């Protein structure tokens, strides 16, 4: 009997049996916990450190009106946006090269592009300490060349946070742009050229607009991943460079103020989900799944 044979006789249980372990896990480990922290965010932390079951808007009022949180939120969005734009500008070049260049090394370049995904985030982040730190490579070279007399501290500011994020996010961007470029029908640019376009015009009028889905998918991924991180600011940032996820980490792990931590993480979730929803409304979420093929 074929898989579709039982459709005629009514409900086919087999796909649901196959799906049930995964769906039950998603429900129990993600959906229910997410609903739980919604409830939790209305509870209160008492002076003794216990949770008080109640319905209070205090956490939400604090999170939404305190300028401290607002400033860090703006800072987070700014850092994520700068990192994403940098990734798009820098990432387009290799993506274009891999897709179109007359090169024998296409496979090698693609395999190399996957390598960073296998190297731990923490190692890629901390590697910059070896480059820019007081005893790092750049200072070493400058001291040796006599450009400076004493090592300069280049780390622990917003620039190094952005640098670390770009380094972490760039492969996602390149891969998404590449997938998009690779799917463009070559005869379209050829047609544009034969109709008198210069190479640059053909790129601007044909290739670039057709690669927008990849650019958008890459940007969404980079922005969401960038805006949700707390590791990079902790390793490469200074005291003033905290991002929103650092607040969540502080509230939950350090201060043990779980109701406040719930409200903070829900606000982050709401903002980033709104972005994902707007995106999938216009472009569809399938574009992101394409880079796995």
């Amino acid at each position, binding site marked *: 009997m074929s898989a579709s044979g039982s459709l005629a006789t009514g409900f086919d249980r087999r796909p649901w049996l196959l799906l049930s372990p995964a769906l039950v896990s998603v429900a129990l480990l993600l959906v229910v916990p997410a609903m739980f922290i919604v409830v939790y965010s209305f509870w209160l932390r008492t002076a003794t450190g216990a949770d008080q079951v109640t319905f209070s808007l205090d956490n939400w009022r604090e999170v939404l009106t305190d300028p401290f949180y607002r400033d860090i939120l703006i800072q987070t969005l700014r850092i994520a946006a700068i990192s994403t734009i940098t990734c798009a500008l820098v990432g387009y070049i290799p993506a274009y090269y891999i897709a179109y260049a007359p090169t024998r090394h296409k496979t090698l370049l693609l395999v190399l592009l996957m390598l960073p995904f296998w190297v731990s*985030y923490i*190692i890629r982040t901390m590697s910059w300490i070896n480059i820019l730190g007081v005893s790092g490579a750049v200072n070493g070279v400058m001291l040796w060349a006599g450009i400076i007399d004493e090592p300069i501290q280049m780390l622990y500011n917003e620039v190094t946070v952005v640098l670390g994020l770009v*380094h972490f996010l760039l492969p996602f961007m390149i891969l998404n742009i590449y997938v998009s470029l690779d799917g463009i029908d070559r005869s379209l640019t050829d047609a544009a050229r034969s109709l008198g376009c210069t190479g640059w015009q053909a790129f601007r009028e044909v290739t670039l607009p057709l690669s927008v889905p990849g650019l958008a998918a890459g940007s969404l991924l980079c922005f969401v991943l960038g805006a949700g991180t707390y590791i990079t600011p902790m*390793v490469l940032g200074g005291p003033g460079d905290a991002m929103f996820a650092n607040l969540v980490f502080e509230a939950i792990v350090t201060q043990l103020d779980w109701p406040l931590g719930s409200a903070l993480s829900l606000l982050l979730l709401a903002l980033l989900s709104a972005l994902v929803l707007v995106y999938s409304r216009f472009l569809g979420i399938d574009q992101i799944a394409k880079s796995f093929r």
Partner: protein
Amino acid sequence: MSLAWTAIRFGTLLVYLFMFAPVAVVMLLSFNANQFGSFPMEGLSLRWFVALIENDAIVRAFQTSLVLGALTSVISTTMGVLAALAMVRYDFPGKRLISTALIAPILVPEVVLAVALLLFLRALDVPRSFFLLLMGHVIFTLPFVVLVVQARLVGIRRDYEEAALSLGANAFQTFREITLPLMLPAVLAGMLFSFTISFDDITGTLFWKPGGVETVPTQIFAMLRNSISPEINALGTVMVVFTVALPLLGAALARRVSARMTTGR
């Protein structure tokens, strides 16, 4: 080759340098004989790797990461493969919604996922434990397994299975003799992928791990708090070799196994 291509080529080279140079420096410095592990290098030495083996905390972190990664990969690949089979082989109502649900754990920021799971299990009186860590890693790696396995399954044609069925094999025989060998590379890819993601994870792990338990990434993170030492670089090198060499080895193995199983033993 035109000027424009030369510029694009040069740009590509620079971007690849940017992506790989820092990690290369980590690996280079881990062989540094200099006692502060900084530039200039004063010759090659394996002393920092010896120091790793002699450090109990690091050895323990490595064991924890290995066990956690292995369990995560078995559980999440089992669930992921079953789900991917359903998604590729069947049509059913609500498929789009199910597809979104299956990748939901990576659409939600990992920090939020970590907080929700931690607080929910605490409310059920499950404290921070290895179990919580395992559940967290399973749910976080599941979407990657589903996406990877699904992408490979789409490429396996139904004809072979239908041929086996029409030649008299029952459903189980068909699965064992035809479907399983054909999808073995996909299963291995899912296992490797989930193992590596679990082995490398730090964002969720810092929330979920019980006090006193460290994985390799959280151990590196804790050591960074003091200062960057050559030992951290050596640990980073071991981890890179581990998570990069393993998939390459696995890919080669998968190709050989599937070749043998499809050409008949």
